[in-house]
């Protein structure tokens, strides 16, 4: 505990150098800027900004990333409230009440409770992260390959079956992701798989290319395929983005409850921010004294889910940092950012790269604070961005995404891969297949194979090792519960909506 605290203080020292602080500020600004743009969620925002960090030193780059991470989420909630076009699943609930509030002329209060709630939740959750991640890393050192494999399979199941409208389609996305993850040389034997004789494909395909292509190109192609472009109206903010004492009084409990729901559900992979935000909404609705306001713009319905969303995002960083297992698209991009500097998150990270990881955690605090200071006053500037005509927006997103795919290796091969994956993203959207499981499949597929082989090497080929020992058994027991969960979830959803 005390040791962690001193490491965290060292982290602040790293983050507080003028250069790093400047990168933090830049990250906050760029993150919000990209996050505000309609249709861009945090994962794509970070993916698009990844090339910018390529030439910066790892510590500064990751500090900038931390700032982009919170900035993009904050920007996303602004868009949901003012435009009612949530960029990612976590903001869907925010749009539900927030947009109604904005329509009723209470945009300022909605934005304020979202911003302050995100700050409160982000700060508490980052604190929990600072102490939880090293603890988890220490425990993780004892996990055997078979245990890791069990964890990955659990992540597959949660991400694959909890997201989207149908479980089979989640598994479809996962399976395609696993195939994409196979491409390239086998790690141990060097045998080539699905490379079609292309030299470029030997190293596999870049995760960033997949993310940028499937989110940006896939989305733009899908929008192009529709005849009616829904032109949402940007709602005006009357007065300042601020809230009254009465609003504050109604908000602070939802913030704390949202944090309490969001963080743990991020740590145990519950498949993105959809479940925690929905749960928080249900809880606030059940506990609120102003039940009749729900559906017409209840501030609790913005405060709780926004806090849950932010706390969830910080919670997802715990298994990402401590185990190297990302369970959301956003965490996957952050993992890629680490890997692009040849740093592998996992149990050893806190020992091998303490400066970087503690600098990152400290930056999460700083970035969160900067956002609070920066965004409420700057809100009118962000609103201007919402008024960019959609044809320029799509043109800009596409051109920038293509640049991101190219600049990684300066190769047109990556661009061609991006085109193919963009087309896949279009098909996924057209047929209602969720995107995130694909990304998790691409990233965790190769890891699953690695641990699978290691486990069987230890046991000299005896498959029983995969379920031997308490830890794998425990995880597989949770897995069975997760498979049952959607039925319970469906029941709850019905219950909450009907009420």
């Amino acid at each position, binding site marked *: 505990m005390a040791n962690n605290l001193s490491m965290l203080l060292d982290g602040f020292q790293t983050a507080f150098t003028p250069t790093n602080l400047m990168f933090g500020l830049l990250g906050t600004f760029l993150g919000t800027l990209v996050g505000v743009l309609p249709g861009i969620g945090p994962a794509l925002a970070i993916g698009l900004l990844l090339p910018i960090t390529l030439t910066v030193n790892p510590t500064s780059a990751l500090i900038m990333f931390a700032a982009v991470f919170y900035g993009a989420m904050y920007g996303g909630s602004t868009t949901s409230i003012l435009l009612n076009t949530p960029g990612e699943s976590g903001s869907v609930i925010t749009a539900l009440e927030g947009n109604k509030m904005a329509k009723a002329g209470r945009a300022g209060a909605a934005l304020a409770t979202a911003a302050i709630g995100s700050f409160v939740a982000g700060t508490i959750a980052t604190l929990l992260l600072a102490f939880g991640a090293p603890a988890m890393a220490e425990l993780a050192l004892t996990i055997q390959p078979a245990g890791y494999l069990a964890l990955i399979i659990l992540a597959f199941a949660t991400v694959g079956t909890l997201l989207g409208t149908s479980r089979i389609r989640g598994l479809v996305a996962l399976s395609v992701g696993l195939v994409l993850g196979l491409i390239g040389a086998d790690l141990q034997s060097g045998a080539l798989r699905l490379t079609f004789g292309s030299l470029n494909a030997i190293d596999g395909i870049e995760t960033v290319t997949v993310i940028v292509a499937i989110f940006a190109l896939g989305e733009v192609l899908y929008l192009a395929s529709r005849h009616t472009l829904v032109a949402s109206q940007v709602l005006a903010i009357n007065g300042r983005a601020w809230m009254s004492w009465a609003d504050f009084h109604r908000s602070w409990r939802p913030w704390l409850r949202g944090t309490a729901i969001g963080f743990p559900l991020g740590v145990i992979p519950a498949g993105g921010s959809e479940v925690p935000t929905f749960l928080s909404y249900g809880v606030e609705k059940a506990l609120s004294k102003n039940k009749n306001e729900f559906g017409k713009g209840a501030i609790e319905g913005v405060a709780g889910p926004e806090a849950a969303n932010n706390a969830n995002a910080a919670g997802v960083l715990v298994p990402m940092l401590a185990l190297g297992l990302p369970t959301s698209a956003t965490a996957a991009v952050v993992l890629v950012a680490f890997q692009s500097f040849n740093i592998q998150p996992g149990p050893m990270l806190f020992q091998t790269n303490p400066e970087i990881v503690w600098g990152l955690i400290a930056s999460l605090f700083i970035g969160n604070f900067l956002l609070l200071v920066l965004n409420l006053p700057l809100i009118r500037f962000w609103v201007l961005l919402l008024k960019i005509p959609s*044809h320029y927006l*799509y043109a800009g997103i596409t051109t920038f995404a*293509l640049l991101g795919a190219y600049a990684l290796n300066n190769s047109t091969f990556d661009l061609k891969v991006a085109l193919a994956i963009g087309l896949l993203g279009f098909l996924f959207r057209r047929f209602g297949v969720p995107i995130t499981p694909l990304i998790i499949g691409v990233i965790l*597929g190769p890891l699953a194979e690695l641990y699978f082989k290691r486990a069987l090497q230890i046991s000299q080929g005896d498959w029983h090792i995969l379920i031997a020992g308490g830890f794998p058994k425990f995880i597989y027991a949770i897995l069975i519960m997760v498979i049952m969960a959607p039925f319970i979830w469906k029941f709850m959803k019905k219950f909450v909506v009907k009420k």
Partner: protein
Amino acid sequence: MIFQKISKQVKGELAFAGSLFLLGVFVAWDTSKMDIPQDNSIISPQTFPYMVSAFVSLVGFALIIHILRGNHGTPEGNSPTDPIEPLNFKTMLIVSTAIVLHVILLEIAGYIVAAIVCFWGIAYGFGSRKPIKDLGISVVFALIVYFAFTQGLNVNLPSGLLRGIFGNGK
């Protein structure tokens, strides 16, 4: 159920599910053809790909059954009861052409030209009818991105046709 008239959308979805099934078969075929350089590991590099291929085919098959039983996918942003609109081939064609042109032009004509073409084409595809204004915006966008990346971030982008004018590209 199965023999009732099925819409274009459902046909498309069935084709998607079918290709998924075939993808699994293809992965299995590719794996069986794999060149294994002196294999001394206990687990063959083929085991995992075979497992993935089986999983893909299984999921593809399950999706086919799922669709035939009437559980059609809902396009993103629609609610399940919305009518499904036919594809807007015209816009799709213009937008994809702009993207493909970007890829082709990038190393021939350089980043700036490729970005201008792509940006302008997509704006046009999405219904903008102010070609001159769009051209201006495309040029400004391309120049800002080009200089921000090459000068500010030291990322190398092909200067192509404009090599003489803007110097230090590839």
